[in-house]
């Protein structure tokens, strides 16, 4: 590899965005070329410096308060007299307009904000299902790395046809499937591996199309839920959250070519 080629790849290498082969090639080049190695180290220092938490601008509390708790009309009227004194009329009008917008959109919010109780139950059940699947010989009902064997296996066992994709090229080989139950539904469970880790992906048909992706950490497991293409998906594993997000991305891209841009 020449230094010119290494120039761009150096950054992808630093960001862990290279495939194994290119990654090895860059590592080899860095070993041989002291100039490139010095540049790489400089970038690494800068990257580390930029991860300094003081540089991350968190949303001010006032802004957060506006967007997290939909203000009840009584509370809003109690608060306004105090703000009137401090703010100019224009700012107040803007604030009032904004409060009105928030109030008007409350129904949208309620529909949207994760309904905590039900979701926690799903997370707990997903963890239970994941743990049960790891005990004894319960993990797989159908053992196959071929999506065209796993998908037909579900036929007649479920009232829907689950999406089955082999993600081996992305580093998540499909190892099989089984039936499971979650939230009172029969669900399809697909089992993937990430190195030695087991990933369980549950799916069942969705009635409404809310598409918020939510990641939760519990008992050392990462659970990511999302809805897409008319299906609810819950994926759980003990791999780190970044890997699991990558899995979700890979699965979504596979499931919906339009998103692959």
């Amino acid at each position, binding site marked *: 590899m020449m230094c010119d080629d290494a*120039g*761009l790849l*150096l*950054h*992808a290498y630093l*960001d862990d*965005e290279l495939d194994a082969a290119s990654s090895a090639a860059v590592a080899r080049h860095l070993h041989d070329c002291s100039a490139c190695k*010095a540049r790489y*180290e*400089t*970038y690494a*220092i*800068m*990257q*580390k*410096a*930029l*991860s*300094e938490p*003081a*540089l*991350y*601008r*968190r*949303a*001010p509390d006032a*802004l*957060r308060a*506006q*967007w*997290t708790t939909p203000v009840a009309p009584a509370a809003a009227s109690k608060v306004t007299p105090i703000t009137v004194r401090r703010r100019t009329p224009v700012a107040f009008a803007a604030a009032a307009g*904004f409060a009105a*917008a928030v109030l008007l*959109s409350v129904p*949208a919010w309620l529909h*949207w*904000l994760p309904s905590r109780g039900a979701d926690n139950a799903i997370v707990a059940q997903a963890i239970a299902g994941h743990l049960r699947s790891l005990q004894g010989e319960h993990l797989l009902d159908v053992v196959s790395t071929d999506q065209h064997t796993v998908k037909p296996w579900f036929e007649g066992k479920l009232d829907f046809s689950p999406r089955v994709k082999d993600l081996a090229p992305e580093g998540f080989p499909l190892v099989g499937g089984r039936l499971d139950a979650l939230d009172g539904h029969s669900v399809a469970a697909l089992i993937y591996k990430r190195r030695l880790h087991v990933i369980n992906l549950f799916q069942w048909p969705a009635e409404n199309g809310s*598409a*918020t*992706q*939510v990641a939760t950490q519990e008992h050392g497991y990462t659970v990511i839920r*999302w*809805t*897409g*293409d008319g299906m609810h998906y819950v994926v759980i594993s003990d791999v780190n959250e970044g890997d699991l997000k*990558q899995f979700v*991305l890979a699965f*979504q891209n596979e499931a*919906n070519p*339009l*998103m692959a*841009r």
Partner: protein
Amino acid sequence: MVPYLDAAYNLAHWLARNPSDAQDVVQESMLRALRYFDSFRGGDVRVWLLAIVRNTFYTLRSRTPQDALHDELDEAVHPLIDDGPSPETLTLLAVDVGALQSALERLPAPLREILVLRELEECSYKEIAGITGQKIGTVMSRLARARDRLRAELTCRPKEVRRHDVR
């Protein structure tokens, strides 16, 4: 969407470079996000929201023309110098958060946003491509330019860095 309020504000703040404009951008973005939620086609909510924040910032800025032109011209004036000082010198500068912050703020918006998305927001190249509507290759080359430029800002203009700090 609310879980990503910090992400939205962080990007808005680094783009707008002051808290009050950043708040305006976030407010407007959140309202837009609510309005256009129907058009959300699935995928990552964070990417979707950050793309809205970015678009909102550029639309709002184009309404009040200011340093846009300056930003683009600025890039031509300062060519990249490849042999900078040793990593040790840089370490000293980079650990100084104030110097780092002002160096980042001096970068033109397209370079600044990509560094913020990659290093502060820890987006993957693919996510950045989704947010900025660029190809992955463009993301890569722009990120390389941004890092070179930041290094130059950190090391080649130390006087200005110091002056900036005092102010």
